[in-house]
C-alpha cells in the first residue's frame, strides 16, 4: 500500500488536525472545530478518533485499538488493520506497551502512564445538545459558563428514576471551567479522567470537533450535594479472572436465564488469568465445560450476544452509534482458550 501517505491522511490535513489538537490542549475541555475529512468508514465507526490517531502517529509508535474495552471486536480489528496497512506501525493488545491507544467508550483498567496518548471516539461532543438544540445558544452558554441546564438534566434523572440514572457520557467539568462530554464511557470510568498522566484527545468526525485533556487535568463529575456522583458497575466479580474492581460486561449464555459477567477490558482480564487469577467459571471454561456455552451455527442454539453496560439497564442505548455494543460469545470462547 505504498500509494497512501503515512497514516492515510495527507500531510496538510494532519497539520490542520494537529493545530486543532494543540488548541484543544491549550484550552482543556473546549471544543475546537476542525475540517473533518471523509474517511473510508461510516460515521459512527470512529471517523473522528481515526483522524486524531492519524495526526498523532509516528512510525515509531505502537498502536492499540479497543472497542468497549475489547481488542478483538469488529471496530477495533478493522481500525487496527487500517493503520497497519496505511502506516505500518507496530500494534499491540497490551495497554502497557502501547504509545497511542484509540478507544471506543472505555478507558483501560491498567493505569496509563506519561507519554501515552488516549484517543476517544466521540459521537456527539456537545454535552448540552439534548437540552438545547441551537448550536449558537450552546456556544454562548459555554462562553458565559451558563451550565445550570446541565443540572436540569441530572434533576430530571432523579425526579424520574430516584437517582442519577445517567450511566454513560456522564457530564464533567474540566478545571472548573468547561463542561465536557467525556464520550459514551461508562461513568465507572469517570474517576480515571482526572489527574491522568496520559494525554487524552477526543475526536468527533461527523460533528467536526476536537477537544482534549492535557496530563494531570482536574476533571470533576457533576452532581448534587444530596445525590453525589458514584461510579457504578455490576455488583459481581469477573467470572473469568475474578477481578472485583473492573468494569463488567454481562453475557447471556443460554435462553434459560444463564448469564456470566466478564471484564470488558479483555487485555486486563487475560493478563490477570495468565498470572493465575481465576473467577467463578475461569477454570471450567478451559476444561470441558459443565455449563456449556453454545457457539455460532450450533444446531438449535439461540444467537448469543454480550450486552455492554451491564450496570445500567434503565439507560437508553448509546446514541447515534452505528455499531452496537455487542460481540458474539464465540469470540469470547476463542479468547478464553489458550
Amino acid at each position, binding site marked *: 500500500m505504498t500509494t497512501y501517505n503515512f497514516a492515510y491522511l495527507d500531510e496538510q490535513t494532519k497539520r490542520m488536525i494537529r493545530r486543532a489538537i494543540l488548541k484543544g490542549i491549550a484550552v482543556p475541555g473546549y471544543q475546537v472545530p476542525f475540517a473533518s475529512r471523509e474517511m473510508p468508514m461510516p460515521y459512527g465507526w470512529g471517523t473522528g478518533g481515526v483522524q486524531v490517531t492519524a495526526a498523532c502517529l509516528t512510525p515509531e509508535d505502537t498502536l492499540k485499538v479497543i472497542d468497549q474495552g475489547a481488542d478483538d471486536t469488529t471496530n477495533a480489528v478493522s481500525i487496527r488493520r487500517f493503520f497497519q496497512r496505511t502506516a505500518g506501525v507496530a500494534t499491540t493488545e497490551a495497554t502497557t506497551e502501547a504509545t497511542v491507544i484509540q478507544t471506543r467508550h472505555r478507558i483501560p483498567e491498567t493505569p496509563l502512564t506519561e507519554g501515552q496518548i488516549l484517543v476517544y471516539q466521540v459521537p456527539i461532543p456537545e454535552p448540552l445538545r439534548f*437540552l438545547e438544540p441551537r448550536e449558537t445558544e450552546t456556544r454562548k452558554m459555554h462562553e458565559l459558563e451558563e451550565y445550570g441546564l446541565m443540572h436540569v438534566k441530572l434533576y430530571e434523572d432523579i425526579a424520574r428514576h430516584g437517582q442519577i440514572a445517567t450511566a454513560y457520557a456522564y457530564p464533567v467539568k474540566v478545571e472548573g471551567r468547561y463542561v465536557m462530554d467525556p464520550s459514551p464511557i461508562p461513568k465507572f470510568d469517570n474517576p480515571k479522567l482526572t489527574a491522568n498522566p496520559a494525554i487524552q484527545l477526543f475526536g468527533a468526525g461527523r460533528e467536526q470537533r476536537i477537544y482534549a485533556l492535557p496530563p494531570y487535568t482536574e476533571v470533576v463529575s457533576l452532581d448534587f450535594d444530596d445525590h453525589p456522583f458514584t461510579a457504578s458497575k455490576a455488583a459481581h466479580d469477573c467470572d473469568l479472572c475474578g477481578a472485583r474492581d473492573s468494569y463488567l460486561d454481562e453475557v447471556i449464555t443460554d435462553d434459560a436465564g444463564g448469564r456470566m459477567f466478564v471484564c470488558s477490558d479483555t487485555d486486563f482480564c487475560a493478563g490477570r488469568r495468565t498470572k493465575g487469577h481465576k473467577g467463578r467459571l475461569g477454570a471450567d471454561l478451559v476444561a470441558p465445560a459443565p455449563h456449556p456455552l453454545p457457539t455460532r451455527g450450533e444446531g438449535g442454539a439461540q444467537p448469543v450476544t454480550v450486552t455492554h453496560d451491564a450496570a445500567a439497564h434503565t439507560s437508553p442505548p448509546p446514541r447515534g452509534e452505528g455499531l452496537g455494543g455487542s460481540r458474539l460469545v464465540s469470540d469470547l470462547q476463542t479468547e478464553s482458550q489458550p
Partner: protein
Amino acid sequence: MTLMQSMTATTQPLLKVEGLTKRYGPRIGCLDVSFDLYPSEVLGIVGESGSGKSTLLSCLAGHQRADVGRIAYDGRDVLGMSETERRRLGRTDWAYVHQNPRDGLRMGVSAGGNVGERLMAVGARHYGEIRGKAADWLGRVEIAEDRIDDRPSAFSGGMQQRLQIARNLVTQPRLVFMDEPTGGLDVSVQARLLDLLRGLVRDLGLSVIIVTHDLAVVRLLAHRLMVMKSGRVVEQGLTDQVLDDPQHAYTQLLVSSVLQV
C-alpha cells in the same frame, strides 16, 4: 433597613429609561422613549400591533440592543454592562414572561425541572431544596403538587402560562417584563390568571412592565400607563386617568374601540 433607608429606597426609581431609540434600518422600532419605574409599580404599555411596544420591551430586557439612549437599573448602566453581567441579571433580578408559554418553557423538561432551572443556574446544588422550592411555587400558581413530574406539554394553555410565571418568579426577581401574558387564553382562564398575577405582584412587591393590547388587563393590573403609536409614546399617566379621560386623539380612538358587552 431603617425607615429612612427604606424611604429613600422607594423614592429612587428602580428603572430609569432616557431617550431609548431602536431603528430597523430606515424604519423606526421605537423613538425617544423615556420613563421612570419605581419599586412595586406596575407600568402598562398599550398600543396597536406594530406600535413598537414589543420592540421597547425586548430592548429593555436586553434581548435586543437599543441604538441610542440610556437604561439605568438600580443605578447601574444596563447598556454598558458586559453580556455576562446582563445575563446574570436576567436570571436573578429580572424575569421575562413570554406571550407564548412554549417560548419561555422547556417543553421536554418536567414542571419541577422548569421551575428549578433558574435556581440551578444561580448555583443551587441541593436536589431536595430545589424540589421543595419548585413544589412550593407550583402551589402558589395553583398547579397541583402531583403534577410536578409532568411535562408542560401535558398541561393546558392556562397551566402552561402559570408554570411560566412560577419558573420566572422562583428566584424572587424585582423586575418582571411581561409580553401579553394573557394573549391566546380564553376569557375565564384570563380572568383567573389576572387574579393570580395581581395577588403575586401585591404580595411580592414586584415592579412590572406589562405590554398588552388588552385595555382590560391594564385597567386591572397597571398603576401607570404608556400609550404608544408608530414607535412614539403619545400619552402617559395614571391608568384610570388615561383610560377615563384620554387626551391624545389616538388614545381616544383606542379607548372607544373597546367593545362593550
